[in-house]
Each structure stands twice: as structure tokens, then as C-alpha cells.
């Protein structure tokens, strides 16, 4: 076993509603959808119309700026609706699924294929969108050759899916996926959790790195920083581990099979468990087997695609995308709290020792969505850096972004982070600022100006 990279900074927030090990396979549902909004920076150009028949793997739309990047249907069926919002903004393309699924055939022999053939297969199949470029956290440019490709083999976020369960029985596809990635770039890094048995130990042809420490140790950005950081002018690619399997299936099954596993978790889930289904399933379908607890007395809940730190708020009518591997359901906040800032708040969590969470390290919390205070300018110092295990001064970076100072942002590390990396900074911030949105603003400014 190679050297363990120990991360001292970070935080594991223990929440109630952890998934038990059971996995439920979803049958083919009624309706699936792909939303262009799930893809950062993509301006969609529609390729289908309502009533069209599609096979699984047929393109639905492409990116105007990169016409070669297709976005494809996860199922075969009929386009039942093209949902649009204000100014005709494309929100989602819905497909009513056939009972008997048909798949668009792909025939690329991975063993003999050239890099170009692999790229072409990924672009056509819509799986290219699963390859994310760092800096910026946007879909990779197929004309680039990255310095390396990074895959995190574990998720350290609150209530995250255990990849050993998510990937069980799928290791052939995972290996094929890594083989495909190696065609794209010779150097593929795989981050694993030190001291934990992982199915991914068996993966061949990749450089394995072991990480010890609290969240965000599982964030690929943090792993990149400690393995081979992104410098100005450099690009690396990242792929979520479950998407490596989906890419692998393109070559082992010769079709687009976007099956993945979500951990359905959180205090408001009756039976937190794993659910296996297709990307594009409705949130309601994914939650169905686990069920949401009955709410009493006007209480409401929030469904989050992803984890509670950096996921996206969704409704039951929305559809799960290809980047998430969990769905969290937690109670909404907003309750009246008399002089709460003075109260002991034993059921709330804080990293501050002005509360008592530090005396109860084992306690699992049922956190609500309340902001727990008013928005203020930066006052407290030295706090944010404790939760970002990188050699970066987060507050200086945040201030550079606020000032729109490109050069400073560049110098202070904007190329190395995306939203999820500062999620803990945002969580602990006593000034209650939206730091993840701020980082995205900064990144968008960089994309515009560079």
C-alpha cells in the first residue's frame, strides 16, 4: 500500500438517517427526463420534438458552444414534453418510457480502439458530459488532452453513499471505464479511503492514493490538490466513480446504460436505503421505496439531490441527474426560536465551542434548513481555513472574487476549487454568506474573461 495522505482539516457532520445496506432496484418508470440545467454552462440546442421516438442513447440536445457534445436519453420511448421556463429557457426534455427498452447500438472495441474512437463514442453516447474539467468544474473540452484524470473512489459527505454497495456487481464495468479513461489520458489517479476495504482495490492500470481524514477528504478537488495540483494553464479531468461504471458499460454492453445507485437518506426518510435506477428517473420514483415520513402539524421537508452541503434543492416532480449519488430529505427550518443565539441549543450542531456539540462527538443530529442567524460581512478569521484542506487562504480568495480581481483570484487558487470544496466553509460561516454561489460567480467571471 502506498503512502497515506493524512488530512487534518475538515469536518464530519453526523446526521440521522443513514442508509441501511439494502438495495432496491427500480422497475422502468413511466417518465424520465434530462434537464440541461444540470450541466454547468451548457446552452442547449434541441434535437427532438414532442412526439418523437427515441432509443436509449439517442441524442436529445447538444451544447451550442460545443456541438460535438451530445446529451442523450437514458431510456427508449416517446418525447412526451419539452418543458420551458421564462424566455423559453429549456428546463427539461421528458421521455415517456417504453415498457420494452430498446438501445441504440454502439460498437467500439475498447481493446483495439484509438483515442479518437473512444472520444467519438463518448461524445455520441452522451457520456462525455460525465467528464468534468478542473479548473472551473465544467464539461471537458474533447479537443484537450488533460494532465491527468482523477477519480475519487469514496464520498465523505454527510450520509454519503457507500461506494462498495453502489458498485457491487459492477466491477467489470468499472474496470472497463478506467480502461477507457486511460485511452484518453495515460495517467489516471484513483483516490481511496485509507484503512477501508474497497472493491476498487482490484482496479488495474490506475495510480491509487490513500486519504485519511474527515470530509472533504473524498472530494476529488482536495485529492487533486494533494496528488498533482492544477496550476495556471493546466487542465485535469475528473469523473465520478459511478459514472466510470456507466462509461465502462458503453464498451462492455455496447449500449448506453445509465444505471446508478442513490443512497436515499436523511431524517425525514422512513427507511433510508439504496435505490438503483436510471439517470433521469423522477425524484418521486427514487424516493418511493424508502418513503418520506408523514409530516405532522404543518411541518415541511426539503428534498436535496446530492448531500446536504452542496446538493441541489429539488421537488418530487424533478428528475435526478447523472452527477449525484444520493438524495437527502431533511426537515425545513424557519421555526420561531426565542433568543436562540443565547440558548444552549443541544439539538443543533456547531463547530464553535460556545455550543456543546464538541462534548458529544458521537451524537447524530437532525439538522434543519434554517440559516440560524443574519447575514453579515466577514468578521471571524482563521475559521474557514480549518475546513478547507488545501494550501489556500479561503477568505482572501473570497474577497478577491467579491472584488472581481482576476489576477488575485488566479494567484489565490481559483483554479483548484469548485463549489463543493468550500461547502464546509459555508456551513460553519457565522456570517451566513453564500460562499458556494460566490465561488461559482468567480469561476464564471474567469471563464468570461480568460
Amino acid at each position, binding site marked *: 500500500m502506498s503512502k497515506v495522505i493524512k488530512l487534518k482539516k475538515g469536518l464530519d*457532520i453526523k446526521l440521522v438517517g443513514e442508509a441501511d445496506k439494502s438495495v432496491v432496484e427500480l422497475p422502468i418508470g413511466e417518465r424520465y427526463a434530462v434537464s440541461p440545467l444540470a450541466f454547468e454552462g451548457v446552452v442547449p440546442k434541441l434535437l427532438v420534438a414532442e412526439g418523437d421516438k427515441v432509443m436509449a442513447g439517442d441524442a436529445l440536445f447538444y451544447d451550442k458552444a460545443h456541438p460535438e457534445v451530445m446529451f442523450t436519453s437514458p431510456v427508449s420511448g416517446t418525447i412526451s414534453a419539452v418543458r420551458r421556463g421564462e424566455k423559453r429557457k429549456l428546463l427539461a426534455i421528458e421521455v415517456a418510457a417504453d415498457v420494452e427498452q430498446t438501445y441504440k447500438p454502439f460498437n467500439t472495441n475498447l481493446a483495439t480502439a484509438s483515442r479518437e474512437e473512444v472520444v467519438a463514442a463518448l461524445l455520441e453516447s452522451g457520456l462525455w458530459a460525465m467528464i468534468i474539467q478542473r479548473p472551473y468544474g465544467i464539461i471537458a473540452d474533447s479537443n484537450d488532452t488533460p494532465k491527468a484524470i482523477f477519480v475519487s473512489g469514496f464520498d465523505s459527505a454527510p450520509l454519503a453513499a457507500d461506494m462498495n454497495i453502489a458498485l457491487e456487481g459492477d466491477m467489470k464495468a468499472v474496470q472497463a471505464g478506467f480502461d477507457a479513461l486511460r485511452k484518453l489520458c495515460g495517467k489516471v489517479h484513483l483516490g481511496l479511503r485509507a484503512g477501508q476495504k474497497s472493491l476498487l482495490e482490484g482496479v488495474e492500470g490506475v495510480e491509487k492514493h490513500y486519504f485519511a481524514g474527515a470530509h472533504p477528504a473524498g472530494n476529488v478537488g482536495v485529492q487533486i490538490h494533494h496528488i498533482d495540483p492544477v496550476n495556471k494553464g493546466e487542465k485535469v479531468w475528473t469523473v465520478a466513480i459511478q459514472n466510470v461504471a456507466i462509461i465502462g458499460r458503453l464498451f462492455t454492453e455496447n449500449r448506453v446504460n445509465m444505471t446508478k445507485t442513490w443512497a436515499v437518506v436523511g431524517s425525514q426518510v422512513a427507511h433510508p436505503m439504496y435505490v438503483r435506477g436510471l439517470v433521469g428517473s423522477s425524484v418521486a420514483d427514487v424516493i418511493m421505496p424508502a418513503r418520506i415520513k408523514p409530516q405532522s402539524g404543518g411541518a415541511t421537508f426539503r428534498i436535496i439531490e446530492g448531500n446536504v452541503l452542496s446538493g441541489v*434543492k429539488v421537488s418530487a416532480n424533478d428528475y435526478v441527474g447523472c452527477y449525484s449519488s444520493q438524495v437527502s430529505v431533511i426537515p425545513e427550518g*424557519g421555526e420561531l426560536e426565542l433568543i436562540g443565539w443565547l440558548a444552549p441549543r443541544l439539538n443543533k450542531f*456547531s463547530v464553535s465551542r460556545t455550543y456543546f456539540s464538541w462534548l458529544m462527538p458521537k451524537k447524530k443530529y437532525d439538522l434543519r434548513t434554517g440559516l440560524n442567524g443574519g447575514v453579515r460581512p466577514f468578521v471571524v478569521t482563521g475559521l474557514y481555513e480549518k475546513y478547507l484542506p488545501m494550501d489556500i487562504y479561503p477568505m482572501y480568495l473570497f474577497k478577491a472574487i467579491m472584488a472581481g480581481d482576476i489576477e488575485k483570484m488566479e494567484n489565490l487558487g481559483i483554479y483548484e476549487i469548485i463549489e463543493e470544496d468550500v*461547502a464546509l466553509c459555508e456551513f460553519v460561516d*457565522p456570517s451566513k454568506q*453564500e460562499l*458556494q454561489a460566490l465561488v461559482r460567480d468567480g469561476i464564471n467571471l474567469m471563464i468570461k474573461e480568460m
Partner: protein
Amino acid sequence: MKQKNTTPLPKRLLDKFAPTFSEGGKLSWLHSFYEAMETFFYVPTDVTKKGSHVRDCNDMKRTMFMVIIALIPTILFGMWNIGFQRIDGADFTIWQNFWYGFWQMLPSILVTYVVGLSIECAFAQIRKEEVNEGFFVSGILIPLIIPIGTPLWMTGLATAFAVVVGKEIFGGTGMNIFNPALLARLFIFFSYTSSISGEAVWFSDARTGATPLGELANTGTTNVSMLDAFIGTIPGSIGETSTLCILLGAIVLLATGTASWRTMISVFVGGLVMGGVLNLLAPADLTGATEVQKYMALPAWQHLLLGGFAFGAVFMATDPVTSAQTNCGKLIVGFMIGALAILVRVFNTGYPEGMMLAIIFMNALAPVVDHYVVQANVSRRNRRAKKTINA
């Protein structure tokens, strides 16, 4: 049967007056004040919209309130000591001395809060922001560090200066360069030197005598026992005399993580080192030595017990906004504050209290120190980039 109203009283009152203070209401110009009251009683019911859906339950109110809690021993002791330092103070009971001091101090606390919070509310109203909690701390620090007998109008003026010039013109809490409470003292110190100068200003009543620092500045020695200086039964401004009570506050601040141990400890280290260096430089034989030479020979540890050193180290230097913001910067700035304070004390006898000047000076330099610390990070990043290009 009459249905019982389950809404708690403060909420009912707030709801009742909400229209009066809202836009279009009679008192809409006091909206920021209403909002401050509202958030004082009830945590804002806002929920997260995006990003981190759950949040830590710590907020600025809690953070600032911890500083007030840490100040309580110092405040209570200071009030008692006002009474005790009267010329016949020793003849009274603890309670009598305390009440005497309480009534002496209360007006200046009220004046600082009324003046300071009014200005804060006005600026919050103009900027359409919420009132920041920062002044809750500044407002109690000011009466603790200005001379006891300061006329109330002077206290009010100094507070207004500190809030407007020290804070609001820079953009409010979080943006200021200088510690607002210290600016208030600085304002009095430099603007009304003649009316409050001399060592007698630290006394409330007829008692004359010198503060230990005043004595040291004039004669190079003091008769105050170090035990008295530690416990605090010596003349001085209200907050600064009792090193013991300040240490109790320091424990609260450090245990709760509210103040930076890096800053606090390094101020003390800086003071000890500079005191020690001066000890080494002082002539061995003090007969016929000048005042300054005698002052140089004062054992380094005694410096930490005298004057505003401990109070400044624990409550002033650690202000997160005006101190250094990087961990490394905190060590440097803290050390410099401690060292400079002793240097000013010993060599510039015109300013017996070096702590105030040292902190204000290092407030101004802290961004420079931080700049170089951050620049080192930038250089590391650039070197790393070069290395990969060359590789």
C-alpha cells in the same frame, strides 16, 4: 370558552408594531432599530436557499456575546475598584464600594451605547442592512478603557468619532482598520490632553496619587506590590487593573475559541521578550541611574501585570477584524504589539500607556503583514507551476 393565545408575548408585541416600522409606516425611519430588536428576540426564520442546506448554529450574535461574558469579571471588579480607590475607599464594605462604582460607571455605559447604537442604526438604515453586533462589544469596551472621570459629553463625542471615522466610513463592521474602542480612547487622549492629562485622571474623587505606570514614567520605579497589580486593587482605568479577572476572561475566550490564542499568547511573549531585552541592557548598578535606566530594569514579567497590557492583549489585540487575518500574521502582529508596547512605555515617557499606541500602530500594519504571508502562498503556487512546466 376563550381561546388561549399561544403566541409568546415578545412575538405578539413585535407583530403588533411591525406595520409601524415597515415601509410606509409612521416610524419607518427606525426600521433598522426594529429589525435589530426583532432579531435580538427571535433568530431570523430565514432558511437556506442554495449551497449548504444546513448551517452551523453559531452566528455573530453568539460570537460577540461570548466577548461580553468574558468581560463580566473585569466589569464587576472594575466597578468595585472605582469605589475602593476613593481616598477613604477602604473604610467601606465591598457592596458599598461596588454600588458606588456601579453608579459612577453606568452613565458612561449608557452614553456609549445610546450614541454608538444610534449611529449604527442610522448607517444600517441608510445602507439598508441589518444592524451589526460589533458595537455591543465596542460599547462596553469604551467605558472600560477611558479614564473614570471623563465627562459624559467627551465620552459621547469620542464614541461618535470611533463609530463614524473608525468604522462606518470604511463600510461598517468587518471593514474597519482600527479597533473602534481604542480609537475612542485615542480620541480623548489626543484631543483633550490638557483637560484630562496628568496622572490624576484615573481617579474618580478627591484621591490623588499616581497610577503605577505614571510613577514609572516619572521616577522609573513603582511602589505598587505585584500581588496588588495581579489582583487589581490599584488605580487605573476600570477594565485594566485586575490581571486576574482579565485572565478569567481570557480562559472564556480561548476555551470557546472566540479569540485567537495565537494573537493573545504572542502579545504576552512579545512583551516578555522586549522586557527581557531591556533588563539585559539596563545597567547593573542602578545608583545614580536615570529614570529610563531604572525603568529598563523593571523585571519583564511585572510589565505584563501593569497598566493596560493584559487587557489589551486579551480583549483588544484579538479583535478579528483589525488584527492580522492569517494564522502566521497573527503570531507576528501579536509579538510586535507586545514588544512595541513595552518599548513605548519605557522610552517615551510622554505616553505612559504604550499598549494603546502599540495596538493602533499594529492595526495599521496588520494588512501589510498579512499581505506578505498571503504573498508567500502565491509564490508557492507560482513556483509549483514553474516546476511542472520545467519538468
